[in-house]
């Protein structure tokens, strides 16, 4: 037992690699939240009136709301007036090429292993980098533009494609949706926008990389992805933050719209700073992600959640159209004092709609990991199917795994299946690996990796590699 615990400790005590701070001139709004701050954000971004109005409506609605308390996570009350709601790298003018981006910023992304250099075409991933609240660079814009694909920062979209933003903003997650989504609607500063026109298959992975740098700021980005009829896109999202003693709030909103026969695959590797071993610092990650699938459309969420002090997110699918499909694949890791309350909602409205949920929770240290999921099958959603599988792996005896499945079925022709398991990593398994020459650490890695395999194989290749590295796991070889 002694060595087993030791192996797990080595793995679970890996230091956070991305905790550096970039020294850069910032434009930061004074702390506090009121209508003036919202007007300031809107003005800074030179926004049209309709958007300011929308923000203000969201803010006024937010004031009437209370922070949710139903989740299985604990944290001291958040003082919403103490944070700053806008932070941006200072820049004098609109950038026309990457050469004009502050070299300090480019260095930051280099350190993170993200190429903003369009010359490095081999990676084949178009990247939009969001630093604190502002999008700093989007690559491959031209190549994509030739196919009619729009991939740019949210602010740019507001200026260059207002009709699209106006049509779809809030169409899946309305500003009244929930406490954190309303807050985001009021103060969001940037994010990514992506539009794939009818019948177009996006030839490369689109990727956004989020980075929180400034202290005492919240990050509130907003992502909107629209795939028109028959379009396809695979989208990746990655996140890191410096190590800071104070907690930072991150409340993002992601909306996906998949029109008839369209397909959107959305993958996240979330590695926000989780706090230190004593549970000090770390990101509070309260995120609303939802997609709407029309007839024959498909939306897949894949997430690997290793960071944040608190994770609160339920990427969901509204299966509006007949025969639409929703998928959710998740790995959530909680170590030290991390807490995660995460899962999904599958709302079946159309006929013969299908959803699949595969959730893998891994807890070590004092981590608490909850799966919370809702499968709702409306009366008219005849012939619908859901399959859910929730597995938990415990790496010690001080951590916890919890499952809260909610199932509502309003017709008799649908079928819902739920499987759940909880297991502790086996001493026998570790000994078996060691007897074949593997170190204890490699053994734990391998076992955890195997446990997550069903989710990892849903990730695009580049991300699968990153995700497995994140778990300190080496990639399963190409043999066999």
């Amino acid at each position, binding site marked *: 037992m*002694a*060595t*087993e615990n030791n192996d797990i400790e080595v793995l679970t005590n890996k230091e956070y690699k991305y905790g550096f701070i970039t020294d850069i001139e910032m434009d930061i709004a004074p702390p506090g939240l009121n209508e003036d701050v919202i007007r300031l954000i809107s003005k800074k971004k030179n926004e049209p009136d309709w958007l300011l109005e929308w923000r203000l409506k969201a803010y006024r609605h937010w004031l009437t709301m209370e922070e949710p308390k139903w989740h299985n996570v604990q944290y001291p009350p958040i003082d919403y007036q103490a944070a700053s709601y806008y932070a941006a790298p200072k820049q004098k003018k609109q950038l026309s090429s990457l050469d004009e981006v502050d070299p300090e910023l480019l260095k930051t992304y280099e350190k993170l292993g993200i190429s903003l250099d369009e010359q490095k075409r081999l990676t084949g991933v178009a990247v939009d980098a969001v630093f604190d609240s502002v999008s700093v660079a989007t690559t491959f814009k031209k190549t994509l533009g030739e196919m009619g694909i729009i991939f740019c920062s949210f602010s740019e979209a507001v200026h260059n494609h207002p009709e699209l933003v106006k049509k779809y903003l809030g169409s899946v997650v309305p500003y009244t949706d929930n406490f954190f989504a309303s807050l985001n609607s009021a103060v969001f500063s940037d994010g990514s926008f992506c539009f794939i026109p009818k019948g177009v298959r996006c030839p490369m992975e689109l990727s956004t990389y989020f980075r929180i740098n400034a202290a005492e700021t919240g990050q509130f980005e907003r992502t909107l992805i629209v795939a028109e009829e028959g379009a396809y896109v695979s989208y990746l999202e990655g996140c890191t933050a410096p190590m800071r003693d104070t907690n930072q709030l991150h409340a993002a909103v992601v909306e996906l719209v998949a029109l008839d026969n369209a397909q959107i695959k959305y993958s996240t590797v979330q590695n926000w700073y989780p706090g230190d071993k004593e549970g000090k610092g770390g990101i509070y990650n309260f995120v609303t992600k939802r997609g709407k699938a029309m007839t024959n459309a498909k939306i897949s969420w894949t997430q690997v959640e290793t960071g944040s002090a608190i994770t609160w997110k339920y990427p969901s699918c509204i299966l509006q159209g007949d025969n639409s499909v929703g998928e959710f694949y998740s790995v959530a890791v909680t170590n030290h004092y991390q807490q995660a309350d995460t899962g999904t909602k599958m709302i079946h409205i159309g006929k013969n709609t299908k959803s699949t949920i595969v959730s893998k929770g891994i807890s070590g240290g004092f981590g608490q990991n909850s799966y919370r999921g809702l499968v709702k099958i409306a009366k008219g959603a005849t012939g619908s199917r859901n399959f859910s599988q929730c597995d938990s792996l415990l790496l010690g005896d001080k951590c916890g795994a919890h499952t809260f499945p909610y199932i509502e079925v309003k017709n008799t022709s649908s079928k819902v299946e739920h499987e759940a398991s909880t297991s502790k990593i086996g001493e026998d398994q570790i000994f078996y690996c060691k*007897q074949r*020459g593997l170190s204890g650490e490699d053994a734990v890695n*391998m076992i955890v990796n195997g446990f997550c395999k069903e989710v990892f194989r849903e990730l695009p290749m580049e991300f699968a590699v990153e995700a497995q590295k994140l778990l300190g796991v080496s990639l399963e*070889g190409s043999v*066999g």
Partner: protein
Amino acid sequence: MLEVRNLHASVNGNEILHGINLKVNAGEIHAIMGPNGSGKSTFAGVLAGRDAYEVTEGQVLYQGKDLLDMQPEERAREGVFLAFQYPVEIPGVTNTYFLKAGLNAIRKHRGLELLDAVDFLALVKDKMKLVEMDQSLLNRPVNEGFSGGEKKRNEIFQMAVLEPKLSILDETDSGLDIDALRIVADGVNKLRSKENATIIVTHYQRLLNYIVPDFVHVLVDGKIVKSGGKELALLLEERGYDWVREETEAVA
């Protein structure tokens, strides 16, 4: 190759092994036989370094080094292999991936070049024939959903790939039908060489019809009470373990 001197070991404070002495030279096959609960699997586990066992007295020298001082993975890398009585399942990890990781850890330890996927696959194909392993088992998760016989065969297959110096087969014959027993035994025989040694831990004599040992030791109540040649195994099969016990008690 291996010298065990006055080995005492306990589990949860209960002493199971009460002073074992054993010497194994390269090229030899030793069989350790004994009734249930005599300490056979404990002995195998202690040699491989299983955590649950505590060595309270004695010494084990392996190639001149203190075996008990080594971590289980070091022992494996130094060439000690245990074929498990109950092979462990590792869901989601393919058999080939598992074995390649193990082999490369051993090769690294020995200063050999690591094998890439192509070379490894060639090696595996060659070794598979030894135990008539079905190729489909390679790509399945380690031992998951394997039949009892497939698991045991997989152990010997791993042994063939890892090429240990000292192999310990813990009740490898249990749960095998006659055909599987023959295949597994053939595999072990083919792997036999002047450089390596094998310890076979078994309750029954039948495996020894196929793998002929140089020495047979009878383990009763945590002690080796009788040693002899291969004919001792036949005697045990015929007369059971009681006469050995009685004989020992008479001497004592």
